[in-house]
């Protein structure tokens, strides 16, 4: 009979990024025994290492008129009515304190003339973006160093969580596969924090890390938690589409397309400059580029050309701008065969941040007892549109809260319940069966690639009923006909296909929920745009998906307001 190891802990954290690491530190400080599991190596996987340096906190360093009240107002306004106000309030109030924590942990921030520097980003009333030295990598390295000072907390890297264990409506642990030794583990815990990042990797065009498959949303959904606003996806308009070595890499498109900078032009496959006038905001630019591609005027790689030759700047000026803005990346791009001074290159909009996720209250409780969520996995602090810099701030504010309240919840338990062995054995058997030989066996990679193409084509920046229906049918077909054929070869240790096989059924489930949510929201608001419902309705509501014993519901939910 197949065996599994059992490890007990107080607080189990799923996800080793900025939110998870911050939660681990806080839970340990609160006296809990902590175990953190991460699908890859900490600081070398997931989304945090790729993050831009911006962290928003109203310290008022550049402009003393700034304060948390104004930060709060900015969040709610940009969120287009969909921000849960209690969460926005907490983010604005506590970002300042979490910034001070990071300084204490040794994370460094850019300074200017002796003061901490704050950049002014669109959507901020006053300059509010602190800049972390080393960006996301600098942040997670600092948190990892701080976590090392709490040696009682344990870390399991290269661990793939496949199921949450629930008993009597309460979380009792998680089950999964340790990729390093190929063994199954059941972790018993008194509280679980889900901090596994977003679900960007469900689209082929994304600028994130390809392990961001939204596992935590699917795990929580299966456990009965409320999941909201899954259709809200934020795009970045300037992602390399080609060559393969640069696919998914962002560029500072504002610098390349801005008249005062490089002044390069966006051009479709027919050589037409379809962008007239000044560079529009991100969501409008994304839709314009997507429309060109969707209507057959994109490049052979489903992208848009950026043409340096149509610039008004002289070659000397362009050379100077390269040295000023992109000297390092330019060297790399030239190795890849692209000289931006004279070669056309190809950009497309890429999924950049996912606004939907596990619904939380301001203590990061999900609707399942003992299950907490923080960071990009949770929802909905930002509403329908997020200001740059609020994502890293969110990881620190709610990561710390999740650690604190999960530890408190664990304190209220004197011991662990009985391990639901039936659930464990059933899941273990399912995971083992993935490695059995099947007639017409399919690699999970094939299903993943098909899923990503469907999401790119039909669940992109511009949606409509017909396209969403096609997408839904394709996903349901994959679930019914392709998923049962998944077959994984190779051994037990570090089997990448096995990990992908564990991810893929969750990814298909999540894709179905995203599409159903997009179908429910018959309006356009922030990052969700429907060409068949371009109006914004007067009363903002969340979309909410939930699993019950007799099926799933896709419904509306009230946005939480402050009194």
């Amino acid at each position, binding site marked *: 009979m197949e065996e599994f190891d059992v490890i007990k802990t107080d607080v189990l954290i799923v996800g080793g990024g900025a939110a998870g690491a911050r939660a681990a530190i806080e839970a340990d400080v609160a006296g809990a025994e902590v175990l953190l599991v991460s699908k*890859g*190596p900490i*600081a*070398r*996987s*997931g989304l945090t*290492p*790729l993050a831009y340096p911006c962290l928003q906190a109203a310290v008022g360093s550049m402009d003393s008129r700034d304060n948390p009240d104004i930060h709060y107002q900015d969040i709610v306004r940009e969120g287009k009515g969909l921000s849960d106000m209690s969460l926005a309030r907490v983010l604005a109030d506590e970002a300042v304190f979490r910034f001070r924590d990071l300084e204490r942990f040794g994370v460094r921030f850019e300074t200017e003339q002796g003061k901490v520097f704050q950049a002014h980003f669109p959507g901020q009333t006053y300059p509010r973006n602190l800049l972390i030295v080393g*960006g*996301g*990598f600098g942040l997670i390295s600092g948190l990892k160093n701080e976590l090392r000072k709490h040696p009682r907390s344990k870390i399991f890297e*290269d661990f793939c969580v496949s199921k949450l264990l629930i008993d009597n409506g309460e979380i009792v642990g998680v089950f999964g596969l340790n*990729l*390093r030794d190929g063994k199954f583990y059941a972790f018993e815990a008194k509280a679980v924090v889900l901090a596994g990042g977003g679900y960007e990797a469900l689209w082929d065009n994304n600028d994130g*890390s*390809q*392990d961001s498959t939204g596992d935590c949303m699917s795990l929580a959904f299966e456990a009965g938690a409320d999941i909201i606003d899954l259709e809200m996806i934020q795009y970045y308009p300037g992602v390399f589409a080609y*060559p*393969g*070595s*640069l*696919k*998914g*890499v962002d560029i500072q498109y504002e610098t390349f397309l801005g008249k005062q900078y490089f002044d390069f032009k966006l051009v479709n496959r027919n050589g037409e400059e379809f962008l007239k006038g000044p560079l529009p905001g991100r969501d409008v630019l994304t839709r314009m580029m997507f429309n060109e591609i969707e209507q057959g005027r994109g490049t052979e790689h489903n992208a848009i050309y950026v043409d340096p030759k149509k610039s008004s700047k002289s070659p000397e000026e362009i050379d100077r701008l390269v040295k000023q803005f992109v000297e390092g*990346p330019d060297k*790399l791009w030239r*190795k*890849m*065969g*692209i000289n931006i001074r004279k070669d056309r290159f190809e950009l497309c909009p890429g999924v950049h941040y996912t606004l939907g996720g596990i619904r939380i209250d301001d203590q990061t409780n999900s609707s399942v007892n003992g299950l907490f969520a923080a960071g990009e996995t949770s929802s909905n602090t930002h509403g329908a549109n997020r200001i740059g810099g609020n994502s890293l701030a969110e990881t620190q504010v709610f990561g710390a809260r999740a650690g604190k309240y999960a530890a408190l919840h664990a304190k209220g338990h004197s011991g662990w319940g009985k391990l639901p062995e039936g659930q464990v054995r059933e899941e273990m058997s399912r995971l083992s069966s993935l490695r059995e030989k099947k007639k017409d066996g399919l*690699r999970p*990679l094939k299903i993943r690639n098909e899923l990503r193409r469907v999401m790119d084509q039909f669940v992109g920046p511009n949606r409509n009923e017909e396209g969403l229906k096609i997408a839904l049918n394709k996903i349901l077909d994959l679930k019914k006909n392709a998923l049962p054929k998944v077959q994984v*070869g*190779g*051994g037990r*240790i*570090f*089997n*990448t*296909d096995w990990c992908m096989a564990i991810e893929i059924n969750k990814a298909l489930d999540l894709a179905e929920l995203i599409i159903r949510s997009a179908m429910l929201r018959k309006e356009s608001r922030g990052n969700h745009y429907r060409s068949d419902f371009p109006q914004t309705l007067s009363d903002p509501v969340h979309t909410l998906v939930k699993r019950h014993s007799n099926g799933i519901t896709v419904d509306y939910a009230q946005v939480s307001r402050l009194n």
Partner: protein
Amino acid sequence: MENFIHAKIVRYSPDDIEKRIDKFEVPYFAGMTFQVLLRYIYENLDPTLAFRDYRCGRGVCNTCRIKVNGKIIKSCETPVELDKEVVLEPANNNIIRDLVICYD
């Protein structure tokens, strides 16, 4: 006429007694990186090849380090040269499997 890279990869798993060398022929295109080469092998030639593929693609996450012809490089930002033999090995001796290592 299509050009090919003749790649040799040193492979090892704790189940094995000793390391072995596998040879792969990968279609070449100008500007391809080692990460693209590894991904090609994994997707088309051998699904059991183990390597870290988080694809930050910008040399930031430091995950993609491997040893090529004795020198440690980041596979996401190092182009493959056509006329050289390439031998790929893990970046250190803390081998989990194939090119996947323990960093600490």
